[in-house]
């Protein structure tokens, strides 16, 4: 996963795909392919967000622990 696109790249591509599908100028075959790719990018972003959230929560917990011990 580390070699994959960054969160921002993945998110931007996902949004591009959505816009393309909304335009309606694609053939059904293309649309299926785009949709499949979109779902893939969404899963990617979701995972990265979850990971980030977990890290923030961990950091905050450690800071609070440090603050509690004078």
């Amino acid at each position, binding site marked *: 996963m580390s070699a994959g696109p960054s*969160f921002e790249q993945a*998110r931007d591509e*996902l*949004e591009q*795909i*959505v816009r393309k*599908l*909304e335009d309606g100028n694609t053939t*059904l*075959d293309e*649309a*299926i*392919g785009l*949709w*499949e790719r*979109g*779902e893939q990018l*969404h899963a990617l*972003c*979701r995972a990265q*967000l979850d990971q*980030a*959230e977990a890290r*923030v929560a961990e950091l*905050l917990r450690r*800071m609070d622990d440090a603050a509690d011990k004078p």
Partner: protein
Amino acid sequence: MNAKPTPTTYGDRAVYTVAGFNQGVADWLGRLGNVWVEGELSELKRTDRWGLVYFCLKDDGAILQGSMQRERFDKIQPPPVAGDRVHAFGRGELWQRKGEFRFRAYAIEQFGLGQLLRRIEEVRLRLAQEGLFAAERKLPLPFLPGLVGLVCGSDAAAKRDVVETATARHPAVRFRIVEAAVQGAGAAAAVTAALRALDADPAVDVIVLARGGGSVEDLLAFSDEGLCRAVAECRTPVVSAIGHEQDMPLVDVVADVRAGTPSLAAKLIVPDHAAVGAELDALLARAGRALEGRATHARRHLQLLVARPAFADPHSWITARRARLDGASASLRRLPGLRLERETARLRNAHDRLRLLGPAATLERGYAIVQDDAGAVVRDAAGVTVGERVGVRLATGRLGARVEEVQP
């Protein structure tokens, strides 16, 4: 007119009767034209019982008896009174029965007043055109004159008014008084000379021209052109105090300050000693209060400064900084959460739209999409052959499958 009288002849002598003589003179007088005669009206006799009004016209050393029809006399405005200088229009006539010579008047005009006022008005216009009345020419009065010059008539009430009023207000006031004729011929010249004498005295700080009330003729000298010019030329401020408040001789207009009456002039030239003393006391008291007020203000200011946290609590500046740091740290903690929330919302939005457009909902109801090796969607069974590999997309995941039977 009667027929011409004829004399009786005695030898070589022609003799007239008295009546004839008087008639002849009367006829001769009647042929003379009407003329204007100037004189002072006197011995005026008018009663409702007589059809004629009788009077005398006087001159220096000459007198003329006169008469006028009562109706005509009663129409003259303002009604003439004895002592008026008048112009009378008429001619000589002889009262034949008594042999009395009279002036028969057809019109009478008061001459003095109108003529005088017109003359004064002419001088006023001339001086105004030369700018002698301009406000810029007016000199300010000194606050406290060292020596007051006073021009007045000898032993006049006006002099007493000025001196007494000024002395009551300011006991230390000093006068240089020049007495001059303030009425009649030569008054203007006398007042002008007195004025010049006082103006030439460097000790005199202000000059007052004072005269009590009187008729327009009485005050005539104070409208004299020469006197007005002398007042305008004075280097010393001049206060005019002529007559009563309602009198307005030209000197009033050209003077630096016009006082309606002599005692008003006194009030203008010296300050009221008692009032000035009281004013000074009040000023002093105000200054004292102001100083006190400033000291109080400064003390309160100092107290406020000392009471400020920086003085009252030396640790306050540390406390304040710590509070700010805490604030910053709290913001810092909130930031990642906010960012994540924003990104999650953005992602959810994109995904929602994607699901709306894609076949996910259809697939979830049990439908599947079949694609050939090239990825093209298979819509017709005739499009594939037995044994060919196809991909089947389901709601979740995909299958790789081989065609075993074709039913077109």
